[in-house]
């Protein structure tokens, strides 16, 4: 079902529909995280992706909409080459996976007394674990957001919004 939604993301003509199918796909992935006992990742997926990034996409679609209103081909000339390359990638990945002997491994029983969210929080702030990548990621995010505001800022605001 998630894969069908993902397929609709890349094939549907209407971009708003594509963004809504992306939300369905992301929700399916959040369910996958929940099945994998990664509860924090599932929550972050719903909040960050479905709550923030999808809304950003819908805003962008609506701000840039006039030109692409269900008109003209959505695919470029080389779409068959893209499809071929994607199929080759998929087959290659599957062959690679089945060449690896750990592929049919089943999960160990999840330890009931293990607090994954607490361990994740401790790992993100402890100096001998991942505090440095965490800080670097936050600085990157701040820099990217300031850059995004700067790039998208319209100096002639108001009169040129059409």
């Amino acid at each position: 079902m998630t894969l069908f939604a993902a397929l609709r993301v890349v094939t549907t003509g209407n971009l708003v529909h594509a963004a809504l199918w992306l939300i369905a796909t992301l929700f399916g992935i959040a369910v996958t995280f929940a099945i994998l006992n990664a509860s924090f990742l599932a929550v972050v997926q719903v909040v960050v992706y479905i709550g923030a990034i999808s809304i950003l996409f819908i805003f962008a679609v609506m701000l840039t909409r006039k030109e692409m209103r269900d008109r003209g081909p959505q695919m470029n000339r080389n779409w068959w080459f893209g499809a071929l390359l994607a199929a080759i990638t998929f087959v290659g990945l599957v062959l690679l996976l089945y060449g690896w002997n750990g592929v049919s491994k089943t999960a160990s029983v999840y330890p009931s007394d293990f607090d994954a969210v607490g361990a994740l929080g401790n790992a993100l702030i402890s100096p001998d674990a991942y505090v440095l990548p965490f800080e670097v990621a936050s600085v990157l995010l701040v820099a990217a957001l300031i850059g995004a505001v700067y790039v998208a800022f319209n100096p002639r605001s108001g009169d040129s919004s059409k």
Partner: protein
Amino acid sequence: MVPLSWYLIFAAALFSIGLFGVLARRNAVAILLGVELMLNSVNVNLAAFWRYGDVTNIAGQVFAIIVFAVAAAEVSVGLALVISIYRQRNTVIADDIDMLKF
């Protein structure tokens, strides 16, 4: 409990669909949607390897969180660029964006 290969094949299919979206769509926003699919498939892989490996080693989830942050940064900058280009050139078709300076 399903074997690890199911998750890996699911992620591989998702990655391939995203790759197809990146390569085939004409609209720049749709290309960014494909990039999002690819990043998410990587996150599925990270979570699956965390769960099927040593659960007490939390590195897989930490890495997935950092991928989240990088994806948010990427999509905000990408959409800002698309909106800026749309203001200047009145197009979001990737084929038509062929000038560095105008």
